[in-house]
Structure formats: C-alpha cells, structure tokens
C-alpha cells in the first residue's frame, strides 16, 4: 500500500499554528539556528543546490540555482519573495501550509535571505485566504517578538524583515514578473525575461521568488541533510510533492507522496478510487497550464520530466480526477475560458489567440465544428505556445493539445457525429420522451420554458425537437424517468 511521506506538510494537522512553542518543540527554527551559527551562506546554498530541490510551484526550476543567481549579484538591497498567490483552480496546498504551519515558511524565507544576502522578505498572498493571512500575521508577530525576525536575529549580525502583501485576484500574478509588478502596485502584467528577477526583480533589485511549498520543504533539508532528502523521490526529482486531489475521487484532499509515485498509487491507493463506482477517464494536472493523463499513463512515475513528456505538467499540484461523465472537449474549453478570463491582455498571442481558440472550441461543442476547426486549433496552439510572452500564455494551449492528443475520438464525435458521449455539450444533445414510460402527467410541458412539449393528458407527450433549447428542465422535473438524453 502506497504511503504518504510528509515533508512540506510535516506539521500540518499536528500542531497549533498559532503557538510558536509547539513549532519549536518539533525542530522548529533548528534549521535557522544551524544556518546562522554553524554555516556560511555559501554552505547552505551549496546544500540546497546539492539537495536537488526544485520549485514546487510549477516549472520545477532548481531552487538552489535560482538562489545562487541572486546571491552572485552585488547589490545594496535584495528581496526574498514568497509566492502565496495560489491561483490554480483546484489547488490548495499552499493555503494548507500557511494555515497549518506558517512558521515553516517564515523560517525558510529567513534562511533564503541569509543565503542570498537579502534583508527583506515579502509574502504575496491571495486576499481570498483570510485565515491564512491571519495566521501568518500571528506567526510574524511571534517571530519578531522572539527575535527570529528583525534586527540582529538571535544576536547575530544578520537582520531580516518579512511583510505581507495582498493580491487582488489575478491568476497571472503567479508568474514571477507579474507578481513583482503587483507588489510594486502596478497592473500585474508580466515582463520579458531576461533580465531575470534574480538580476533585476522587485524595484529592479535582485529578487528570488519561490512558492510556499518550496519554502516549506527547505528546513527539513537543512536539519536532516541532503542524503536524507535525496533518499526520497527520484534522482532528478528528489523529495516529495503535495497534490490536491479533487474532482470525481473518493478521498478528496491533500496528499504528499514521494516524487516518482505513480498516478495509480495516488488515485487508487491513496485517493480511494473513483466516486460512485464510475469509470476513470483522466486526471488533469497542472491546472490551466497542464494537460490530462489517461488510463494508459496510470503507471508512469510522477516526475517533472515525465509529466511534460506526456503533455501535461506538474504545475502547483492540482489533480482533478475526471470520470465518464466528463466531456474532454468541454474540460479543455473550461480551462481555456479560465485562461481567457485571467489573461492580462498584454501580448497578442494570448490576448487574441486564446480568444480565437476558445471560439473554435465553442464551434465544436455547439455543433459547428469541421475538420478545418481542428487544423486551425493546431496552428493557433503552436503559435501561442511559441510566441506568448509569459508562462500563462505559453502553456495556455496545453489542455487543448493534450485532450486533442488523447481524446481525439471525442473531438471527432463532436465534429462528425455531433454527439457528446458524456452528455455535457447541451447543443449536441437530443431530449426524447419514451412513450412507454410517459404517463402524460404534463409536468414537463408545464415546466418547459419554451413550451415545446405537447400532448394530451394521460397520453405520451412529445418534444418538438426544432424548438427545444436543450435546457434539461424536463429531465429534472420528470418523476418517471421518461425522458432520455442522447
């Protein structure tokens, strides 16, 4: 039976997040102690590089390398930013860490500051997370009072401050350059890299941006050593990853498993399988930037590289489990609509290209699709991936490409047969009354908003297909299961 190993979530649900003494009793601030008293910044930096810790927020960039780039810069001021703008719909691991173990993030940020020579830390957090903000504030207060933050931390020469900045509802601010713009009080529009934030970041000063889960994984590495950390996970993706299991799965929730676990272990052994005995269809990972993983890939070990190879990505770790009732074209459309809503509108491919792609998907789900629609989708997707300015745009076509790759037959059914097998795409459905089952109660007719159901009482009713707007009210109202949808 697969087991969870909890590194980032090690204290979540185990201690009172508002009591610093409980954190300290559980090896809290031991890593900071070790760093400040026993190590030079470069030692810690080397340890983080050698540990192979990679960014848990999406791309999987090696954390130590990022820190090193900032450490190398000569500057009177540097910044350590924690990205807590968990915008990926269906992911909530960062919230769990901040609500359950805020000190682990503060401690790691302070260590990061020590490593790169920064004295200022900023946590950029979604305004939608009031409880996390409250607990962070409590934790920051405690850390200042006890001397884990502020001037001359624990009597050493190192000083570090942390403050909180609230986001205001923009998914694109998860992109580091957009996040920096947002902290600067501007519109969160990404800027072209290079220069990278490690050279010119917040207020044009060297800056590192890591997400909550990454920071939450730092202290155990320092306490337990890199051998221990590398003992978990795979060679190229050491450690664990937290996944947020959601959708049509029995045990919805957060799980933290070693990298390299298979999807099957996560979904079936830990997640308890599909809800209501339905058939597994796919898992969507990486949110609007990712793609779907099918039955065939259930035994692929989950690593950054493997997921990219099968057309998805790790992302922040949202895993949405889909079953036979989900239409993959519709899912692709859902994600693209999300991207449309959240696109900053700065660059052409994302602003206009995604709109056009969405319209093409609408054509398919509403019965206007042709083979040309598919060709156009492919051309657009290609350009958007290559030419968009930031990660949001570059990955926006992924849900479409990935579903087109693995569920081509569903697209073709929509286009050629004008059918949606999951019965989701309304315009493609036909509502019919089964004469044998209909008792002629007229309830459906009375509830039909367009009055397209006709019949004599106590005889079977009939739906006028031409007038039907496929709203489904009749199905919901019928007490005799007499209306079929196909």
């Amino acid at each position, binding site marked *: *039976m*697969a*087991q*969870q*190993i*909890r*590194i980032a*979530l090690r204290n*979540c*649900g*185990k*201690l*009172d*997040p*508002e009591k610093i*003494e*409980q954190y*300290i*009793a*559980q090896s809290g*601030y*031991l890593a900071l*102690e070790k760093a400040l*008293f026993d190590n030079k910044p470069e030692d810690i930096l080397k340890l983080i590089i050698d540990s192979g810790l990679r960014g848990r927020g999406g791309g999987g960039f090696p954390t130590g390398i990022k820190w090193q780039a900032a450490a190398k810069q000569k500057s009177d001021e540097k910044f350590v930013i924690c990205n807590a703008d968990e915008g990926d719909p269906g992911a*909530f691991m960062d*919230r*769990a*860490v901040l*609500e*359950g*173990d805020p000190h682990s993030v503060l401690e790691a940020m302070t260590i990061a500051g020590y490593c790169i020579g920064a004295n200022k830390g900023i946590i950029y957090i979604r305004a939608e*997370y009031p*409880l*996390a903000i409250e607990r962070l504030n409590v934790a920051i207060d405690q850390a200042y*009072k*006890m*001397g*884990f933050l502020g001037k001359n931390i*624990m*009597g050493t020469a190192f000083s570090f401050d942390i403050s909180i900045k609230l986001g205001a509802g923009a998914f694109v601010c998860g992109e580091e350059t957009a996040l920096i713009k947002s902290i600067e009080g501007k519109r969160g529009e990404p800027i072209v890299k290079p220069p990278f934030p490690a050279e010119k970041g917040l207020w044009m000063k060297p800056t590192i941006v890591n997400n909550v889960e990454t920071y939450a994984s730092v202290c*155990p590495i320092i306490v*337990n050593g890199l051998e*221990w950390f590398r*003992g*978990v*996970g*795979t*060679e190229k993706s050491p450690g664990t990853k937290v996944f947020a299991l959601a959708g049509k799965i*029995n*045990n*919805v*929730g*957060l*799980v*933290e498993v*070693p*990298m*390299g676990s298979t999807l099957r272990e996560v979904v079936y*052994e*830990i997640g308890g399988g599909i809800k209501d005995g339905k058939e597994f269809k796919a898992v969507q990972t990486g949110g609007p930037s990712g793609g779907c993983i099918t039955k065939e890939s259930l035994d692929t070990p989950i690593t950054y590289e493997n997921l990219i190879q099968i057309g998805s990505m790790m992302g922040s770790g949202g895993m949405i489990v889909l079953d036979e009732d989900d239409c993959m074209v519709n899912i692709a459309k859902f994600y693209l609509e999300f991207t449309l809503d959240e696109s900053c509108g700065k660059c052409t491919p994302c602003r206009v290209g995604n709109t056009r792609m969405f319209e093409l998907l609408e054509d398919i789900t509403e019965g206007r699709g042709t083979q040309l629609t598919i060709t156009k989708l492919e051309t657009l997707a290609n350009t958007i991936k290559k030419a968009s300015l930031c990660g949001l745009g570059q990955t926006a076509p992924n849900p479409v490409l990935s579903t087109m790759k693995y569920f081509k037959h569903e697209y073709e059914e929509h286009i050629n047969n004008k059918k949606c097998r999951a019965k989701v795409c309304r315009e493609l459905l036909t509502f019919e009354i089964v004469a044998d089952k209909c008792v002629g109660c007229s309830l459906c007719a009375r509830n039909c908003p367009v009055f397209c159901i006709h019949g004599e009482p106590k005889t079977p009713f009939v739906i006028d297909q031409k007038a039907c707007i496929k709203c489904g009210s009749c199905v919901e109202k019928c007490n005799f299961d007499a209306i079929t949808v196909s």
Partner: protein
Amino acid sequence: MQIKNREDLKKYRESAIAGKTASDKNIKLLVGLGTCGTAAGADMVWAKLENKIKSDKISGVELVKVGCVGYCYAEPTVEVVYPDGESVLLGNIKEDNALDVIELHVKKKTNNASNIIKTNIASNIFKNGGKK
C-alpha cells in the same frame, strides 16, 4: 521572550519540548480548523467538545487547534492522540456526533468506529521511506 543568542534558543527549545512532553501525557484532540474544516462546521465541533470537557470536568484531555490535515472529504476531522503515541483520525465529526469522540475515543479506545479514517502517512519523516 527574546532570543538573544544560541544559548537562549537552546533553553527555550528545552522548555518547549518539556512542555510538549508534559502535554503528551494528555489525550489530545486535534481539531482541524483550517478553512475547509471551519466551513464544514469544525468550530461547532470544537465548542461542543470544549463544553463537554468543562461540564463533565474530564481531566487529562487537551483540545488542540490545528490546520488542515488534508482529508478534505471527511471534514471536519478530529485526531485523537493517546499518551502512548498511538492515534486515530476521525472524519465527518459534526455537531451531532461530536460527543462520540469523547465517548468512543477518550473514555474508551474504540478501534472500529465507523468514522475512523485509515491514514497512510509514514509516521516519521526522518526515516528513509522514499522511493528510488
């Protein structure tokens, strides 16, 4: 207290661990009071447990507010940790069955109650339990 040097930290840590050891002698009820838990009614559960412990003057029991444990489907959750280190995680504890926690898991140590969640978390992160 303000920690001014390593010695201070050492002392503080020792006292924190001592405090923990002392409280570990109690039966601890860890109530998941994250956003999900609260939305599912964990605050009511907390209140109910607190009242019961007070009114019945149950000693050796300690309520602890914790963050999200991750078993969202079974929110609200209460984890019962016994002095011997053993624990059970209880799911779907609502206002109406909150007192079962006291009856079935504090006063007694029932291992087959319907709301026990089978957890699968390796107990100690310091062990090498990972895959290669």
